[in-house]
């Protein structure tokens, strides 16, 4: 009797597995999708991913679970997805600054060309200073850096963070170095700016938008191509207003999107295309983006690849020339 029950149970379990297998081949998706965010919950990438995932799940008809796997500057979670089975049930949401510079940081040999990518948003870098800072315009700050090379401190979220790219752009414009002070995240860098521990902070606008409106910090310039009005009467000038020669460096900022390693069949990719296009038009997503001062700039797969060729070159060479890495981007076919 006992044997019979056991063998019946095994049979049921086995048949369940067989059917589950058969089902997943027929109609994708038929179970929940995991969307990996390689950072902690609550960060900018995480919030963007959740807003996007929620919109996409409405079209795909299954729940999209956000899984946070922070660590190693976002590379741990990215590698998890890269090494997982490509079946459409594992997706990645990432910022392109960290993502496109992974090969030159020695994390992987694969580049953005090995992924299918859908870009959703652009968030510009903005240069802020403490409210009692002696610098009132971007010119004041750039002149100070030129006069005291290596002395003016910039607080960022670390090497390869959005803020680091902003600081490197400032350096390129000034033609003189700054002193890089790194913090455990964007929030910590902003706090240090509020307390006056650093001279300026070149993180993303979304991270301190309200502090600018409230007058807790002064915004000198954004690294976008145009002036940005973040509240009635509160306009952040573009750096091009003062330094038109900076055109080759801007727009600088973080670009965020959804990624899947290449290898998924075209039918499934087309479904994701449709879900993505619908998600970026969702009211909740648009509200979230305007709250954060993100530019919604959706790009399909082909468009994203073309955009990233230029973006990756800019990002990789900025880091390589800054001496932040010794691996030549040319090794991965990323050219200037």
């Amino acid at each position, binding site marked *: 009797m006992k044997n019979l029950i056991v063998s019946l149970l095994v049979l049921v379990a086995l048949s369940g597995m067989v059917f589950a297998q058969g089902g997943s081949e027929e109609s994708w998706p038929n179970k929940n999708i995991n969307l990996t965010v390689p950072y902690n919950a609550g960060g900018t990438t995480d919030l963007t991913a959740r807003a996007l995932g929620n919109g996409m799940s409405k079209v795909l008809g299954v729940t999209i679970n956000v899984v946070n796997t922070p*660590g190693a*500057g976002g590379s741990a979670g990215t590698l998890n997805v890269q090494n997982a089975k490509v079946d459409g049930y594992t997706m990645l949401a990432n910022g392109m600054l960290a993502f496109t510079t992974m090969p030159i940081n020695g994390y992987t040999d694969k580049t953005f060309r090995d992924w299918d990518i859908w870009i959703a948003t652009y968030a510009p870098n903005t240069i802020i200073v403490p409210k009692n800072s002696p610098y009132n315009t971007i010119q004041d700050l750039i002149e100070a850096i030129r006069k005291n090379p290596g002395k003016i401190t910039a607080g960022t979220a670390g090497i390869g963070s959005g803020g680091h790219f902003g600081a490197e752009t400032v350096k390129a414009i000034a033609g003189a170095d700054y002193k890089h*002070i*790194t913090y455990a995240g964007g*929030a910590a860098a902003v706090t240090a700016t509020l307390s006056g*521990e650093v001279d300026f902070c070149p993180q993303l606008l979304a991270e301190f938008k309200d502090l600018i409106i409230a007058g807790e910090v002064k915004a000198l310039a954004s690294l976008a191509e145009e002036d940005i009005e973040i509240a009635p009467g509160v306009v952040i000038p573009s750096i091009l207003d003062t330094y038109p020669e900076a055109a080759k460096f801007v727009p600088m900022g973080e670009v965020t999107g959804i990624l899947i390693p290449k290898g998924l069949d075209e039918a499934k990719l087309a479904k994701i295309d449709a879900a993505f296009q619908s998600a970026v038009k969702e009211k909740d997503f648009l509200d979230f983006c305007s709250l954060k001062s993100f530019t919604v700039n959706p790009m399909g797969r082909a468009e994203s690849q073309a955009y990233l060729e230029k973006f990756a070159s800019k990002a990789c060479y900025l880091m390589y020339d800054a001496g932040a890495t010794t691996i030549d981007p040319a090794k991965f076919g990323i050219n200037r």
Partner: protein
Amino acid sequence: MTAQYLLNAILTVLTPINLLFLVLSTTAGLMMGVLPGLSATMAIALLTGLTYNFPTQSALIALIGVYVGSISGGCQSAILLNIPGTPASAATALDGFPIAKQGKGGLGIFLATTVSCLGTIISVIFVLTLTPMLTSMALKFASWEFFLLSIFGILICGAITAQGKAVKGWISGILGLLVAMIGLDTVDTFARFSYGNVNMMSGIQLIPVMIGLFGFPEIVKSFKGDGASEIQKLTKFKAREGFKLVGKNIGTIIRSAFIGVGVGIIPGVGEDVGGWLSYWATKSLSSEEEKQTFGTGNPRGVISAETGNNACIGGAIIPVLSLAVPGSAPAAVLLAAFLMHGYRPGPLLMTESPDFVYNVGIYLVFAAIAMWVIALLMAKVTVRVLRMNKKILMPIIYVLCIIGSYLINYNMFDIKVMFAFGIVGMFLSYMDCPPAPFLLGVILGPMADSNLRRALRLSDGSFAPMFQRPICIVFLIVIAAMILSQLGVFRQLKKVNTRRKTA
């Protein structure tokens, strides 16, 4: 105006659907808190996703309920099993477990739960009255202060937990600091001690270390000796005795709540440190005679640790509301949830949605009360684990430990970390080294390391600024005094003095 906002907030909570959310989320939070490995941060992060489509106020109530519940729930496993359910309740185990061993587990949980509730409510009063003033205090903390605070935290934890042998506690703390060095450092993103392994590069996760250090030795211990003698008798718990103890220690509770709020406000330092600091303050302010009883089941130990960690909740929410800078890891996730529901905490909050602060405050109070009722009902069941045969109970705990480690990042590597630190925990317990400073070392290690290096980079390698900042000087004096007193220097001076007088 204020009264109007408060009244509206109360009426919102009292609608049937919101009361249901409050009870469900607080219960869920308590359960996550009780289970080792499921931390407050994770509880809120999970619920943030789930509440995405809820009505805004209901979602806020649910999130705050789960926050208060999970921070408070950790005390039950700390008291009953000597395995803290969350890192925040590690200090509670110190006196809580001995109380349970004496058969008074019910009293231990009653005390911990009641003061958790009181600690939360006192911290709410701070949120509602002093937010702007306290925010400016948080900004006084820069790199040097963070560095000294983390060293101070590890030193006091070492001195408290190693009964009379502070050096052993400090050894344990320094080992923890060394473990925290593994992985990419936050200053230069340089991989240290990672041997090319991607998992090591991400650093050692806190929760598997905690489960290993505390859980493993308890599991192994339960299989040593014969099981029959392990089954403990329970003395019946009388509520009147509990209330009397709480009433007698109202001073301790208020002091611990002050400390908890203060620790909570400082960005990056959270519930775990709040418990230790409050415990230390209570112990050092008590009489010589009473100091001996800490660690052997002194109810004041439980009272101060649990008030301290819960008061951090209000403290940690203060900078979230005023600057959008979270004061602790769970508060960071809460900030994300606020943003998701269309609120923009930060300097514009008071002009854009002035009712929000009052809503949060009132929800916290109701969550604290709900937590108190539910936790005490739960305790009626959980206390029974003391009567269970450890040889049956512990394998269940063991499975929970493995699941808890895995759930952090859905990564098998974390289970291996749990095993490795389980063995480390066994060694520590053989050597009489307390595991708590080790854990705090892992928590505060990155803070000590990166802040010291950042401060030195800002000052071009000079230590001088450390001696020029007022908060730093206070820390330095307290640290020096503690090291000297623990090494017995003061006692010897006294001896020399009295000898001189008699001579």
